[in-house]
C-alpha cells in the first residue's frame, strides 16, 4: 500500500479524535449558569432526616475539636440525620480547595462548607455558588446580635452569603515564660524594634527568638509586622488601594519583616503551624506569632496552663488593635440536603452553637451575647477587646478577610520570593502590580 493510501486511512481516526475534542471543548463551557437555584427562604419544620455533609479542612490537632463539638451537638438535636464529616487534610489546605472547586464546578456541592468571611468568599458569591442567607439572619434576629462592623464586612450588594460562627484574632504573640526567664527578659516586646533587641539576648542564651512554619504562617507574621509598624489606618489602606505599597513607610515595614525573619528558624521552618509551635512548648524557642487557634494547641493538645506553661498578648506594636478573621459556613446552591444545611446554619448562628464551638476552638463567638462564664482564662482578653468601641478593628490578609483569592494568590507567590530574597522594593512592586491586574 502506498504511503498516501496509508496516510488517508490514518486520517479517519484522527478526524474522530479531533471532532471529539471540539465537542468536549464546547461541552466544557456549558456550566449551570441558569438561575440561583435558591430554595425556600424559611426554616424547615418537621422531622429531620437524610444527611448533612459538612466540608472543611479542619483535620489537625487544635483545628478539628471545635468542628467535632458542633457536629456532635447537631447530631444530638437531630438524631435521625447522618452526619458526614468530609474533611480533607494536607497540602496547606489546597487539597480541600481542589476538591471543593471541582465539586462546585461540576454541580455536586456538599451541604455546607467552610470559608473565611470577607474577601475570600467573594469569588463564590460572584460565581453564584452560595445562597443569600440574609433571610435567615432576619428570621433568627441575628441582625441585632451580630456586631455592626462584622455585618458590614460580610454584606455584599445587600446580601449576606455565609454565617460567621466565630471571631479569631490574628495579632497575637505567644511565648514560653520559662524561656524568657532564662534569658532575663521581663516581658514580651511592645514593638518590633524591642523584639530585635530581645532577640540578641535570646540568641546569647541559646534560644531561637521566633519560630515560623509554612508560607501562610509567614504571611500571618507579615501582616502583623505591617500592622505593628504602620498602625491600623495605614494597614487597612493597603487593601483598599488607599495606602501606597511602594511608599517609604511600607518599605521600611517590609525591611523590618526581613530583619525579624533573620532571628527566626526560617531555615528549619516547620511544615505546619502546630510543629512550628513545638519549639516554644519544648523551651527551645521564645516566641511564635499565631492566631488564637493556637490556644487550642497549647491548652488542649499540649495540656499547658495559661500564664504558666504559655502566655499570650497582642503582637508587638498592636496594642488596642484587633486583627480579625472569621470562620463562616455557607449554604451552597443546590445543596443535596438543603433543609439539613439550613438547620446546620441555624445551629451555627445560635448562641448554643457558638458557645459549644468557640470555647473549644480558641475563638470568641461572632455573636455579641455569649455566655461569658464559658470564656475564662485567655478568652477574657479578646472578648473584652472585641466589644470595646475604642479597639481598632482591621481584617487579616493571610486568612482571607481583606484580599480576594486572585490577588492573594499573587501575594503568596511574591511572598515566596520575598522571603528568600529580602527585596522589599520588589515585593511591594509585585503586590501593587498584582492588585491592578486582579481588579475585575
Amino acid at each position, binding site marked *: 500500500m502506498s504511503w498516501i493510501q496509508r496516510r488517508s486511512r490514518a486520517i479517519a481516526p484522527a478526524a474522530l*479524535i479531533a471532532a*471529539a475534542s471540539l465537542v468536549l471543548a464546547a461541552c*466544557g463551557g456549558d456550566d449551570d449558569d441558569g438561575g440561583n437555584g435558591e430554595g425556600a427562604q424559611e426554616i424547615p419544620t418537621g422531622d429531620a432526616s437524610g444527611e448533612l455533609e459538612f466540608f472543611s479542612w479542619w483535620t489537625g490537632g487544635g483545628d478539628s475539636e471545635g468542628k467535632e463539638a458542633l457536629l456532635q451537638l447537631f447530631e444530638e438535636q437531630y438524631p435521625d440525620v447522618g452526619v458526614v464529616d468530609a474533611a480533607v487534610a494536607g497540602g496547606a489546605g489546597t487539597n480541600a480547595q*481542589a476538591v471543593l472547586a471541582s465539586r462546585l*464546578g461540576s454541580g455536586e456541592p456538599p451541604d455546607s462548607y467552610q470559608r473565611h468571611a470577607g474577601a475570600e468568599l467573594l*469569588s463564590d458569591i460572584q460565581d453564584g455558588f452560595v445562597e443569600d442567607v440574609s433571610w435567615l439572619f432576619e428570621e433568627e434576629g441575628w441582625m441585632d446580635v451580630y456586631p455592626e462592623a462584622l455585618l458590614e464586612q460580610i454584606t455584599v450588594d445587600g446580601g449576606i452569603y455565609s454565617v460567621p460562627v466565630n471571631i479569631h484574632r490574628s495579632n497575637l504573640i505567644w511565648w514560653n515564660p520559662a524561656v524568657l526567664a532564662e534569658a532575663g527578659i521581663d516581658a514580651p516586646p511592645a514593638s518590633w524594634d524591642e523584639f530585635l533587641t530581645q532577640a540578641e539576648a535570646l540568641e546569647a542564651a541559646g534560644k531561637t527568638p521566633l519560630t515560623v512554619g509554612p508560607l501562610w504562617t509567614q504571611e500571618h507574621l507579615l501582616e502583623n509586622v505591617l500592622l505593628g509598624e504602620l498602625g491600623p489606618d495605614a494597614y487597612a489602606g493597603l487593601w483598599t488601594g488607599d495606602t501606597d505599597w511602594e511608599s517609604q513607610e511600607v518599605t521600611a515595614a517590609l525591611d523590618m519583616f526581613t530583619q525579624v525573619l533573620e532571628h527566626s528558624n526560617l*531555615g*528549619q521552618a516547620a511544615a505546619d503551624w502546630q510543629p512550628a509551635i513545638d519549639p516554644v512548648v519544648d523551651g527551645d524557642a521564645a516566641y511564635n506569632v499565631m492566631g488564637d487557634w493556637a490556644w487550642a494547641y497549647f491548652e488542649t493538645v499540649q495540656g499547658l496552663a495559661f500564664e504558666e506553661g504559655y502566655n499570650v498578648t497582642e503582637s508587638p506594636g498592636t496594642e488596642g488593635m484587633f486583627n480579625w478573621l472569621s470562620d463562616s459556613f455557607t449554604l451552597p446552591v443546590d445543596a443535596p440536603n438543603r433543609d439539613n444545611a439550613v438547620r446546620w446554619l441555624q445551629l451555627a448562628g445560635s448562641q448554643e452553637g457558638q458557645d459549644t464551638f468557640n470555647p473549644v476552638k480558641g475563638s470568641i463567638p461572632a455573636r455579641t451575647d455569649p455566655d461569658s462564664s464559658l470564656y475564662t482564662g485567655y478568652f477574657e482578653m479578646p472578648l473584652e477587646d472585641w466589644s470595646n468601641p475604642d479597639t481598632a478593628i482591621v481584617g487579616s490578609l493571610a486568612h482571607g478577610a481583606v484580599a480576594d483569592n486572585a490577588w492573594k494568590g499573587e501575594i503568596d*507567590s511574591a511572598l515566596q520570593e520575598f522571603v528568600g530574597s529580602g527585596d522589599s522594593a520588589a515585593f511591594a512592586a509585585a503586590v501593587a502590580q498584582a492588585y491592578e491586574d486582579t481588579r475585575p
Partner: protein
Amino acid sequence: MYRLRKWGPAILLILPSLLAIGVFVYGFLGWNLTVSLSDWRGLRPSYNYVGFENYTRLASDGRFTNSVGNVIVFTIVFVGGALLVGFLLAYLVERRIRGEGFFRAIFLFPMAISLIAVAIIWRWLMSNATGAQQTGLNRLFSSIGLEFLVNDWFKADQPFAVMAVAIAAGWALSGYIMALFLAGMRGVSDDLREAARVDGASERRVFWHIVRPMLLPVLMSAVVILVHISFKTFDLIFAMDAESRLIEMPAIYMWFTTFDSFNFNRGAAIATLLMVGVAVVIVPYIWYSMRMERRQ
C-alpha cells in the same frame, strides 16, 4: 468487503479503547489547550480568547522559571541516579548468585509503596531539625561519627534541595530500572556469550562487547520512562514540602495556581508546556523505536 471482514473484528476489538483514549486523552488535552488560550480566572468558566498571553506571562513569571530550573536539575539527578543505581544493581544480581530472588525482592519493593508514603518516610529521614529535635538521617550521622554528612536536605539551598528529593525518588524507582536492565541482560542469549568465550574473550570483554550493546533499547526505555515520571512528579513533592520554593516544580505550581488561586488559564498553560516538554522527549523515542521495529 473482504478487507472489512478481515480487519473488521480487529478494529472492533480495539474500538472501545480508541474511543476512550480519544475522549479522555485527546479530547481533554484539546480542552486544556482551549483554556490555556482563554481568560478563565475564578470558579466560573470563561472562554474568551486571549491568544498566547498566558504563555508570554509565564516567561516573565519568576515562580515559573524557578520551577523549570528545579525540574531540570531534578530530572538530571533523578534519571542519572536511577539509571546508575539500577544498572549497578542489575549487574550485581545478574550473575545467578545465590539468593538472587531475595535481593531482587528487596530492591523492587519500594515500587510497591505509594509515593505519598515514600514522601512521608523520607520527610522524616531528611528532617533538618536541630538540637533536641534532631532526628532522621542527621541524627544517625551524628551518632555514628559522620557529622560532616549532616545537612539541610530538602531545605538546603537550591539546587541541593532538589537533589535531596531526587534521592527519595531514586530510592523508589531504582529497583524498577534494575528489573528492566536485568531483563535486558538475561535476554542476551547464552550462546553468544559462550561463542565469545570460546574465542578467548575474558568475562569483562564479553560484557563490554556483547551484552552492553544489546542493552541500548532497554536504556532508551528506561530514560523515557524516568524522564516522563520526573516531569509529572507531584505526589512526592506535595507530601514532602508542598509550599517550598526550593523544590517547587511546574506540576506543583500548576496545582496551586489552579486550585488555590483559581487561575485556570495559567494552570492550563503550565500543563500544556509540561506536555510539550514531555513530548519533546517521548515523540522522537516512539518514532525511533517504531522505525527500529519495522527494520526487524
